């Protein structure tokens, strides 16, 4: 009876009679909710088959997700060209994996390539040209479109956000004013209106005959808003840095850009990284809003699949599948950020 495990259990769940009652009520509620849920999700669900007729039980009809799987991933991307998406995806995973290995030789070089050459290569693979068949962006969709939106909007938003944060703390009043106006404007309006704005105004303000791609409009709209939020996250890091760092660098005779690049930003970005990751997660979630300009990302394609007369009533299956992907991706990002923060805390004692 004196095992430490039981002791802990008792302390945490049955410390007082009230506590015990709460625990029992919670257990009952969890049991009542999770049993039917598990039955629907797993035990009574139909997993194998090729058509709706296979689904006879009361549970979920995962056949639907199975049949539609490639559409959820690629959208309407032409089937013979899908290997290009696979290669782009493999490149993404490989780069991320290699960069997370801290002892990698030439890690710096790869990091620079991953934000310059690789995105261009990815664009070439997905869109085509130079020997590859061109696949119009209106055929892109599914998880692939979600990732494209997140990555390319992020690639614009992070550097722009850093510049805006520096601008907001600049000595020059006009630069400071312009940065504040830019940041507060985009932060003050809903993202959905910005996506609307980008899709309606960009064709209007460009010279006639110069067409901005619909997907590019959405990416730009998202990037501007996220850059404004990113700027505030970076500003937090800049403010946390002691003034002495800049003063010492000035005393050494370094110029403005060199101080920012060598002294201030490396430290400030490290502090700002958790906040920046949060903005990145927000960006990932907000890519769903492109549904409003008829781009079909993962959520959009799941929603569109419900209109198929052959699969009426599959709402729950489609939502559970899409929701699970979003959840795992966001949860993984936030856990990564949390662990990194802990490691840095241990290393720098902050």
């Amino acid at each position, binding site marked *: 009876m004196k095992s430490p495990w039981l002791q802990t259990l008792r302390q945490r769940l049955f410390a007082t009679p009230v506590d015990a009652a709460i625990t029992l009520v*919670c257990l009952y509620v969890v049991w009542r909710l999770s049993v039917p849920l598990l039955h629907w999700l797993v035990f009574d669900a139909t997993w194998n088959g090729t058509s709706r007729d296979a689904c006879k039980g009361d549970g979920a009809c995962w056949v639907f997700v199975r049949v539609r799987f490639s559409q959820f991933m690629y959208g309407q991307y032409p089937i013979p060209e899908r290997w290009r998406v696979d290669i782009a995806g493999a490149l993404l995973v490989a780069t991320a994996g290699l960069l997370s290995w801290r002892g990698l030789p030439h890690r710096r070089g790869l990091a620079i390539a991953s934000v310059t050459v690789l995105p261009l290569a990815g664009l070439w693979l997905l869109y085509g040209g130079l020997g590859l068949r061109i696949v119009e962006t209106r055929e892109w969709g599914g998880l692939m479109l979600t990732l494209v939106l997140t990555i390319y909007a992020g690639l614009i938003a992070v550097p722009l956000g850093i510049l805006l944060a520096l601008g907001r703390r600049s000595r020059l009043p006009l630069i400071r004013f312009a940065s504040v106006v830019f940041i507060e404007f985009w932060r003050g309006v809903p993202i959905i*209106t910005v996506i609307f704005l980008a899709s309606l105004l960009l064709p*209007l303000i*460009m010279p*006639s005959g110069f067409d901005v791609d619909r997907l590019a409009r959405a990416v730009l709209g998202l990037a501007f808003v996220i850059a404004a939020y990113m700027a505030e996250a970076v500003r937090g890091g800049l403010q946390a840095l002691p003034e002495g760092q800049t003063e010492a660098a000035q005393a050494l005779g370094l110029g403005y850009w060199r101080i920012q690049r060598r002294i201030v930003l490396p430290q400030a970005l490290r502090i700002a990284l958790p906040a920046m990751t949060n903005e990145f997660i927000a960006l990932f979630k907000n890519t769903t809003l492109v549904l409003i300009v008829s781009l079909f990302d993962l959520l959009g394609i799941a929603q569109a699949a419900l209109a198929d007369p052959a699969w009426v009533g599959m*709402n729950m299956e489609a939502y559970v599948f899409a*929701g699970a992907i979003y959840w795992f991706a966001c949860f993984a990002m936030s856990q990564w950020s949390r662990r990194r923060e802990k490691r840095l805390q241990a290393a720098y004692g902050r």
Partner: protein
Amino acid sequence: MLTFLRDRKVRDILWQAAATLVTVAVIWFFVRNASENMVKAGIASGFKFLWRDSGIEVPFNLTGYRPSDNILALLWTGIVNTLLVSAAAIVVATAIGFTVGLLRLSRNWLLSSLAGFYIEFVRNIPLLFFILFWYFGVLAALPTPRDSADFLGVIFLNRRGLSIPTPDDVTGLRLALAAIVVLVAVQFGLARWAARRQARTGRDFPVWPVGLVLCGVLPILALVAGGMTTAWDVPTLRGFNYRGGFVLVPEFVALFAALSTYTAGFIAEVVRGGILSVRQGQIDAARALGLTEGRIVRLVVIPQAMPVIIPPITSQYLNLIKNSSLGAAIAYPEIVAVFMGSALVSTGQSIEIIAITLAIYLALSLAVSVFMNWYNARHKLVTR
């Protein structure tokens, strides 16, 4: 020759002049293109279209708007609908958020894990997902009007929405509301008087029990009395649908449910962070002074946690108002749906309509940040 460039002041001015020049050039380029394109498309600019008849149906409105009204009235209906769903969702999100945030801090491991599960669940999934889920997943699966779920025989929930009774005559309820305002004012006065008396003489006054009666029991009695004396228009099933009362359309219910449960997850984290920011030493010191647990929470924890909680919670409220624009995805008639959607399609005045919509949201954001600055300044004065 170029030595004057070494002067910092000269360089500052040159940098700023260059930046201004580039900005002006870019804006000029865009404006010129826009006016050329508009001339080509035959769009006349200006705000006269606001007084044109709209001809747009709005299925859910509290303003008495009709399609024969002008577009300005349509915009107003959209604003009212945005504010309605936001206000309702803010109240419920705050209630759920505080509850979950406090449960997250519970000593009971199971309770705190369940709260943590809720927080991680809603925060890691896009809001649009929840809106679509409630609208197409939950509400579409509700029974037909004939088999409605009813609450006490006066409120009915079915796939056409939530039917609630409305009072025929609001005089009784107005009186009750006025009585409540008076009671709250009396309670405020009483609390100030009691605090002053205690400071002067040290004599205690049971402010909280009295407050419970004044602000809790009596208002409920007043509302019940007000409700009893009025005739109610209760929804009844006629044919295939409920008639009478007021119908909260499914779009409203879905948007409201999604917004409140989603934002609650963020508010819960804010509340938890705020309470954890009160240092343990404060609580230990209060215990050493012999304060009871209830008083420690009321006099030590809450006053120190609230200043930490209120600024981020205000920005969560602002996010909620901005997020209510996602109602456009399920055609809930709020600003974006009726104005940026329907009115823009029917008039084609895209620049004016976008400018007005953005201006409304910016004004709202500005108002909130002015409040936040005022609050922070006031709080700084209090802490000295």
